[in-house]
C-alpha cells in the first residue's frame, strides 16, 4: 500500500497549520481584547464623568436695558462641563447660549441675548443643560 506522506512530514504540516491558525486566532484575540478593554474603560470613565458632574447657577442678573440676561454658573465637580443655557420669559420672550465651557472649580458668566427686552417683575425660567445630560433649573424675577 502506497502512502503519500510519511507520518513525520504529515505531523510537521499539521503542526504548522495548527500553529498558523492558532497564531492568527491568538493575534486576533489580543487585538480584540485590547479594543474591548479600551472601549469598556472609556465608557466607564465617560459614565463616571456624567455621574460626578456638578454645577449650579450661582447668580443671575439682567442688563439695564433688559436685552441680556447674565447667568453665573459654578462648576463644583471634577470634570469640565459644557453647557447650553436656555432662557424663557413668562411673557413669551426667550434666548439661548450654546456650548459654554465651565472648567472644574471655576465660575463662568454666560450672557444670553433675549429676543424681547425684559421688564420689571418678569419671571424668567433658566434651564442649564450639560452635554452629559445633566440639568439645573433656576427662576429669576426681574427687579
Amino acid at each position, binding site marked *: 500500500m502506497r502512502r503519500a506522506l510519511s507520518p513525520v512530514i504529515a505531523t510537521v504540516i*499539521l*503542526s504548522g497549520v*495548527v500553529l498558523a491558525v492558532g497564531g492568527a486566532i491568538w493575534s486576533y*484575540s489580543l487585538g480584540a481584547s485590547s479594543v474591548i478593554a479600551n472601549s469598556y474603560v472609556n465608557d466607564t470613565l465617560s459614565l*463616571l464623568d456624567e*455621574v460626578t458632574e*456638578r454645577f449650579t447657577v450661582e447668580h443671575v442678573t439682567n442688563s439695564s436695558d433688559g436685552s441680556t440676561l447674565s447667568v453665573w454658573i*459654578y462648576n463644583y465637580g471634577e470634570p469640565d462641563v459644557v453647557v447650553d443655557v436656555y432662557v424663557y420669559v413668562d411673557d413669551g420672550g426667550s434666548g439661548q447660549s450654546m456650548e459654554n465651557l465651565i472648567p472644574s472649580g471655576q465660575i463662568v458668566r454666560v450672557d444670553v441675548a433675549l429676543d424681547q427686552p425684559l421688564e420689571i417683575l418678569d419671571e424668567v425660567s433658566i434651564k442649564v443643560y450639560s452635554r452629559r445630560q445633566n440639568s439645573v433649573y433656576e427662576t429669576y424675577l426681574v427687579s
Partner: protein
Amino acid sequence: MFMKHILSRRGVSTILGTLIFVGILFSAYVPMVLVMKQADTIYEQRVHAAEVESYERELEDLLVLAYPNDADDTITVKATNEASVPIRVVRVWINDQCNTTDKTLMPGATSVVDSFKVDLSEEVFNVKVATERGNLFTSSSGSLYYDPETGYWATPTLAICVNIINFMGKYRIEVAYINGTQVGYYETQGVEFGDVIQTFTVPETGVSYVVTIQKHKGGNWVDLPGTPVTVEMVYPNGSPLVYVYADGTEI
C-alpha cells in the same frame, strides 16, 4: 513507544492547540478582565467619593451676617459655621458684585470673612456667600439700606421672637431689661389651642433682656421650664432677630 506517541499527528496538534488556548487565555482574556475590573474599581471609588461630597454639601450650614461700616463705605461679612464639616467660603456676592475670597471656617467657628467696598449709589445691598461645595447662603440680617440723602445706613428693627409650643393653655410673656424695666408684654386673650408666636421689638442692641413666659394653671401663673431666660442682643455681631422657644406642654 514514546517517539510513536510524540509523532502521533492528533496528539501533537492537541498539545499545540491546548498551548495556544492557554496562551490566549492568559495573554488576552485575563488582562482584559483585569483592566475591566480595575475600571470598575475606579468607578466605584469615584462615585463613592462624589456621594460623600454631596452628603457634605447637604450638611453645610452657614449663618451669615452682613453689616455696614460708616467709616469707609464697606460692608463687613461675618459667618458662623453651624455644620459639622469645615466650610470654605470662596465668593461673596454683594448685589451683582462678585468678590473672590478664601476663608475656611471650622465647625462652630465664627469669623469675619472680609470687608468689601461698595458703590453707595446702589442704595440697597443684598449679600450672599458662596461655598466651595456650591452652596449659597444669604445674609440673615436681610438687605442693607443706605440713604444717600442723609448719608446713613438704615439699621434693621431689633426684635425678640417668642415661640411657645402649645396644645392648650393661656400664656403671658414679658420682655424686660435686666433691671426689670419692662420692654414688652403680651397675654393671650383666652385659651389657645395651637402654638403661640409673639414678636417684641426691642429698643437697643448691646444689652441683655430677660424673657419670662408663664402659663395659667390652677388659678396661678406658673413659669414655663427654662424661663425666665436672658437673651443678648448683639447686632451687628449677631442677628437682629433673636428667637426664644419654650415648651408649654410640660405643665
